[in-house]
């Protein structure tokens, strides 16, 4: 089989690395060879973070090139646009509704793209993009920070050969005990949110 490639993007402190950690673990549980690689710059938080996760029979490279991601999981809208070129044309993009303006936007020098622009840019690369109100869904469950697991829930609906229970096992092991129930519900909310565009 050809390796299945995921690219997780977000901003430092958002939970992108927890999401990619779960994604890698799910691949191991499903019996794949797995490689995961993170790219994060100097900042403790506030900088761009990307993480590549690959599942396959045998996986060689821990990194992928442009056009090689089968799935893009973006926790932040601007980062979705920055990395959508990594997606295979026609690949699946799951994009959360969180927007974190960089300093140049808060100082008024740059403009943060609006949701319509985000959609137009995504649609140039794929029709299979899914804009998920991840923050709102997580807030409804009581904690906006679970937005990353909401998005994992949506992503899981596109990965046919791994049943939801495998994802949930991994989530249960990797989130703090007191947040297990919240994250289970966040995962299910994400699965149900798939249809909305």
């Amino acid at each position, binding site marked *: 089989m050809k390796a299945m490639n995921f690219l997780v993007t977000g901003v430092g402190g958002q939970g992108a690395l927890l999401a990619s950690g779960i994604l890698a673990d799910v691949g191991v549980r499903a019996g794949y060879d797995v490689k*995961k*690689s*993170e790219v994060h710059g100097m900042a*403790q938080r506030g900088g761009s973070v990307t993480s590549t996760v690959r599942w396959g029979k045998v996986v060689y490279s821990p990194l992928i*090139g442009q056009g090689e991601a089968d799935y893009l999981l973006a926790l932040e809208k601007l980062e979705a646009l920055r990395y959508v070129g990594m997606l295979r044309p026609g690949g699946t993009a799951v994009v959360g509704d969180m927007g974190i303006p*960089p*300093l140049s936007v808060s100082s008024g020098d740059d403009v943060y793209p609006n949701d319509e622009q985000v959609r137009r840019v995504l649609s140039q690369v794929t029709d299979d993009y899914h804009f998920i109100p991840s923050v709102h869904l997580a807030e409804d469950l009581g904690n906006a920070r679970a937005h990353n697991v909401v998005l994992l829930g949506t992503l899981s609906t596109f990965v046919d050969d791994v049943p939801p229970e495998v994802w949930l096992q991994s989530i249960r092991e990797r989130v703090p005990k007191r947040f297990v129930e919240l994250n289970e519900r966040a995962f299910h909310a994400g699965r149900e949110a798939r249809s909305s565009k």
Partner: protein
Amino acid sequence: MKALLSGNEAVARGAYESGVQVAAAYPGTPSTEILETLAQYDEVYSEWAPNEKVALDVAIGAAYAGSRSMAVMKHVGLNVAADAFFYASMTGLEAGLVMVSADDFFMHSSQNEQDNRRYAKFARVPCLEPSDGQEAKDLVGVALEVSEQFDSPVMLRLTTRISHSDTLVELGERQAEERAEVPEYRIDRIKYVMVPGNARRRHPVIEERIEKVKEFAETFPYNRVEMGDTSLGIVTDGVAYQYAREVFPEASFLKLGMTYPLPPKMIHDFASKVDRLIVIEELDPFIEEEIRLMGLAVEGKSIFPMIGEFNPQVVRESAIEAGLLPPSAAVEVKQPELETPLPLRPPILCPGCPHRGVFLMTKKLKMVVSGDIGCYTLAFLPPLSALHTCGCMGASIGQAHGVSKAGIAQKHAAVIGDSTFFHTGLPALLNVAYNKSDTVTIILDNRTTAMTGHQQHPGTGMTLKGEPTKAVEFEDVAQAFGIEQVHTVDPYDLKEVEGALRDCLEAEGPAVIVSRRECALLPEARKLWMALRVNEERCNGCGLCFEVGCPAIFKSDQLDAKTGRAKAWIDPLLCTGCEICAQVCARKAILFREEMLKEGESA
């Protein structure tokens, strides 16, 4: 049992399993997590040393004493530790010593790119290179065996991509001999005292030693031939092997697990079986040059880049351009057209960062600032633009002393972090005192090694293992050096910072300002977080607070009726309540903590 481990975790596990007894390091991306992971094993003594040279001396001492040991550093750390690296090669050791060098290609978090395989050849030290986590773990034990077999330190060379990639690793048990009693130190003055007479005897020994390792490399199991289509033969190492396998699934491979010294017979044999011989290696043409010295025709850097980090795309596109692959091998990419350029997201000083207070004041006083390595380097960015050099660890104070001796029209100072000061700032400050310059040294003491993710250091009062220890005070150090002007300030108090700066600049002789406030991300500091608020009636959009460069302050949608300028808005999720912006505001429009509390009470 298999576990998904990062390369760094795998190296730590390898050290544990192969019976390492002493390990020392100074934190540095991408190597930091090795010692952090190793510290969790009680069977291994591990420590943060003040710098890489001390760390390597510690590991050498332990190996002289008959214990397996490990020193860990990033690539530039070996520049600091090079002296120790060379003498350890000359003396050899009583037990295995592995020197881990993690090279940061693309400079994800470094000031330069350098290929530390050069150091291995320079010092006649064998160099092993893993291509994934499993090899990273296994090669620690192999390195120790090679070290003991040939009486030489061994370099285990990692790269950022090996260190920071997770792969499946088979875990094993610790193999360490139980010691009945404390071993006697074996004295050998001829071997271990590198005075010229002894050193001249040792040099031929190490030249012969590396020839023997070369023989050993011919049958070293991690130098592996994988024959495929013989029209193309690829010699490769490290993670580049993985990219090459991905891009050339049909080709023949010679994968090198030991990149110094190379096995000449094996390479001649491989070359004779393939039509075209190429080398795929990151950064320098190290293997390529070695093969060329063997008199073989080989290509490498004429095809693949000498700068930055590889990935499958870099390898594939280079190969297509060189005609090694047909144009049809290209991956289809769709780069969308953007309506407006995407705002960049450079790393920034965090909300509540105590360094900000110091840089606002050096900027106000129009000072030239010699900088150093740490989070505070980011003060070079606008809007602060208040740091003007960054070279290597500990460079700031020596530079500022030089500036002072040369003489310039502006006021100037050195800034250096607490951990960086202990690393290599100490002798430079001693020089300032000894050679009497007016240098103002500002020690940015945020009570941690923040940049690499909050490690302990000699000023924190805590060891890597979490044990309490003596905390060195910077003020005591400065006074012991004979520096009379020593100020301690809270960087959240702008007036206090400015006052100390003015005092130091006016006075004669060297001065030290200790700017003490813990990193806003430390757990104790987080407990004090409290968001401030802008009083919209008082704010007229003058923009002074935007010049603070805090990511928690935004231009709001509300415009001031008179000036037409955007008023400020503070994001309550990001603000920590450091009050630096509140002190900068000329219209008292940003509420201080006390005002916020009063507001809360009356509400």
